[in-house]
């Protein structure tokens, strides 16, 4: 593969470019065509590392200088053409010879805080608190840190890279003339969605709050659930260009010790220009990249993540993503819903059973229909067979084509429902339900039974967790093909292959089909039925091997033995 860089060599940088591959990356990242991206940029101190081919641009290793002008010059070079970076220079209140400068990103800082507690304090109010002694240039920094700033979180650095990152993350940087140190003020504030209901996991009973796009808000939501120093949240930065913050959360003492190390190792292996959503990370760290089944789960529910952490899993939170990844993932999680754990356990069992049957329906219903109608109609009871035959009398297509047609219609409707502008919803549902369903049957294009089967599949696919349902909906099509090709036998072979595949999967070392194969008896309490809480004494055995005990013994509530019975 040839990259444009070979055709448009850049004289100024030719030596630094190690390989054609990185040259290509550079092109992609700069997002500019090779002709214009070339020589012109070469002399400019590179902007935020974007247009340099090597991973560490020249300014990254620079230290701050004690000259304010030089620092500002450097920063202005780094932030050239970044109109949202504000440079504000002013003088220290007590000693007009000491120049100060504030650098921050417009829109990412709390403007009131910056103007009141930093600028106003330093440029006007300092004389009120300062001692009579004049503050010299040498002790200005120490004084500002001790008494000048009314900011909760203050940090300092002497490295240019750290300074740049702080500015970009929303911190406000204060530079003091004569000091090679930048004061980083935590005064972040930006427009963000507030904490709202979960979009994908609705519950009737249970907490509603869901994660949002801001990592810090998300960690605080989690911390509010687990008020324990054992909840660890480790952060690292991923994405060469986007510099996205990614946090790994786990409960120390419950999580399997190797798990966190493994997750961090896999995260650190990621070398990509940008992380825009957790889904990218999911695909980059999972065990079975070729499988349709993901080996990392995600949810936007706070209580679910907290429960997962308490079961010994680890979570990966990505800034800018309201979905938190959890691992290891099990297949059975597709029929588990947070509400199961809050509702009465008898009802939960019913709900889970419904979902389990739905899973099977999504996978098999239409394929089974094709197989039976096409190859083994004798399996149906005679009255049903007769009515089916009557319906299908005028249908010009074989059942296979018919089902594929209706499945396509359903998938298209679903996709349309998701993507269309909201005011059009009515129109599509009318067209979908009436025209396509009713009229197709009347016109004799498809049998009514086909519509029923496909609709049933559709309804069933929404009755369990969305991630699982999209996977199963994909797998359904090969099964329909096998059924159309070889009837029930083909379908059976397909199911066999599916089971073999599921059984062979692992998620971070845990067998994906875990409580079923290998059979884990103690985990059956939380599979098809959810045992009452007083009986769920242990955590999932394979996941929480490190610390399996969840409850103390004797949790089953009973009235006190000696109580007098009232009402006699």
């Amino acid at each position, binding site marked *: 593969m040839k990259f444009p860089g070979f055709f448009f060599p850049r004289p100024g940088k030719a030596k630094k470019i190690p390989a054609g591959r990185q040259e290509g990356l550079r092109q992609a990242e700069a997002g500019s065509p090779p002709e214009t991206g070339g020589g012109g940029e070469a002399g400019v101190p590179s902007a935020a590392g974007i247009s340099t081919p090597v991973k560490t641009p020249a300014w990254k290793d620079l230290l701050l200088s004690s000259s304010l002008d030089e620092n500002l010059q450097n920063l202005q070079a780094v932030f050239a053409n970044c109109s949202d970076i504000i440079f504000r220079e002013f003088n220290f209140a007590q000693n007009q010879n000491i120049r100060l400068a504030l650098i921050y990103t417009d829109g990412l800082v709390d403007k009131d805080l910056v103007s009141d507690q930093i600028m106003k304090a330093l440029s006007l109010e300092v004389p009120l608190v300062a001692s009579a002694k004049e503050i010299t240039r040498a002790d200005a920094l120490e004084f500002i840190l001790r008494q000048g700033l009314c900011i909760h979180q203050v940090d300092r650095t002497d490295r240019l890279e750290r300074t740049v990152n702080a500015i970009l993350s929303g911190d406000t940087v204060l530079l003091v003339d004569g000091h090679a140190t930048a004061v980083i003020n935590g005064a972040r504030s930006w427009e963000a969605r507030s904490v709202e209901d979960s979009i994908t996991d609705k519950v009737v009973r249970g907490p509603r709050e869901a994660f949002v796009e801001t990592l810090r808000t998300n960690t605080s939501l989690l911390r509010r659930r687990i008020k324990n120093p054992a909840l660890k949240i480790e952060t690292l930065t991923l994405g060469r260009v986007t510099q996205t913050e990614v946090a790994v959360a786990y409960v120390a003492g419950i999580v399997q010790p190797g798990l966190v190390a493994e997750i961090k190792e896999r995260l650190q292996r990621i070398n990509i220009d940008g992380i825009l959503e957790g889904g990218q990370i999911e695909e980059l760290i999972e065990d079975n990249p070729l499988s349709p089944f993901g080996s990392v789960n995600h949810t936007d529910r706070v209580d679910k993540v907290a429960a997962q952490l308490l079961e010994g899993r680890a979570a990966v939170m990505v800034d800018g993503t309201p979905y938190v990844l959890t691992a290891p993932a099990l297949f059975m999680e597709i029929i588990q819903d947070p509400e199961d754990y809050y509702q009465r356990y008898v009802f939960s069992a019913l709900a889970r059973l419904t979902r389990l049957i739905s899973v099977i329906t999504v996978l098999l219903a239409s394929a089974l229909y094709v197989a039976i109608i096409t190859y083994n109609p004798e399996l149906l*009871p005679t009255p049903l067979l007769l009515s089916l035959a009557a319906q299908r009398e005028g249908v010009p297509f074989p059942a296979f084509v018919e089902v594929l047609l209706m499945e396509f219609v359903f998938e298209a409707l679903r996709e349309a429902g998701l993507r269309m502008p909201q005011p059009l919803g009515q129109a599509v549902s009318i067209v979908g339900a009436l025209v396509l369903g009713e009229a197709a049957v009347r016109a004799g294009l498809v049998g009514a039974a086909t519509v029923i089967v496909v609709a049933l599949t559709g309804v069933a696919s929404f009755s369990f967790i969305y991630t699982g349902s999209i996977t199963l909906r994909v797998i359904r099509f090969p099964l329909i093909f096998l059924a159309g090709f070889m009837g*029930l036998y083909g379908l059976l072979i397909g199911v*066999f292959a599916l089971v*073999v*595949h599921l059984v062979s999967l692992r998620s971070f070392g845990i067998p994906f089909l875990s409580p079923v194969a290998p059979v884990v008896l103690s985990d059956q309490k939380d599979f098809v039925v959810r045992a009452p809480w007083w009986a769920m004494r242990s955590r999932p055995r394979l996941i929480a091997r490190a610390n399996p005990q969840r409850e103390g013994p004797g949790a089953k509530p009973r009235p006190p033995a000696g109580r007098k019975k009232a009402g006699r």
Partner: protein
Amino acid sequence: MSLEKGKISSPQAVLLLAQAVLATAVLTAPSLPITYAAQDAWLCILLAGAGGLAISCLMVNLSLRFPGKTLFEYLEIVLGKVPGKIVSFFYLWFFLHIVTVVVREFGALLTPAFLPETPLIALLVLGMVPVAYMLWQGLEVLARTNQIFAALLVFGVALVVLAIPNIKMTNFLPVFDAAPVDLLKGTLAPLAWFGELITVGVFLPYFSRPEDGYRIVALAVGTITFMLGLAVFLAIAVFGPIVPASYLFPVFNAVRLIQLANFIERLEILVVIIWVAGGLLKIGIFYWLIVLGAAQTLGLRTYRPLILPVGLLIISLSFIFHRSTLDMIRYIGLTWPFHGLTYEALLPALLLGIAMIKGKRGGKQ
């Protein structure tokens, strides 16, 4: 050992061994004993079970003398390098015979039940694909898949309950009517099926607790005896002592008669489903034994390259060994008991004798 890194737990081992015998035997087993022993055929199954226990314990005893070694590996220790390899090849040849019978029996029920006009070979090739995929993933996946489909056997037992309206207990009278010679004749074929438990000689090193070998085979023999006994019981109870002998799949026919509440009918499809899943697994088990054994005998580092050629070999040999279903039935009735028991009882007994003599001289490893 390095060929296969999987370990299987004791319950998985029991189910695997049971499946290695049951999958095909449960449908075909009743015919032969009923042919000879009529309504006393259930006695044949009990006798065969006892014999099977003896055979499998013998094999466990032999295998436990060579911890961590499979049959193919310790053959070389017991017999010496070259003779060991030769006997290994004989065993591979024997396992090939078993698997071809399974493949053909698998097809014999499949074709009429599902796709009467499709050439058998097309069905078999399609069926072998997921099996080969399973082997590619290794023993652990084989064992777990088996564990899942073993749950289907519960349905099998449920079918017997549903067949109760068709059952006539008087069919079993008079009890103990068969002559001892006939009983013995009727026992031979099921005994040879039970003898397939010698596969424990290859599986044992992969058990997570090989020291439980005796208990595992005992449980496996118990499961098999129960299921085969149930099959024979069902066949006789529904059809009487004479008719089932002429059926190829008496259980299938018995289930076919189930009709309850104008709604529960045509349940034989369940039997076919159990049969297809069990058949694929049994093919998988012996297929695995062959590729593993071949790789160990030939000294390969992995058996994966052998999966495709052996798969092709199995399909073609199943047509070469048995020209038709009738040909296969004749083989099962007349040749199989002696062919099978030679490898399942005679050879292992000889091997155990040699190993004991050598073992006393310190040749044990």
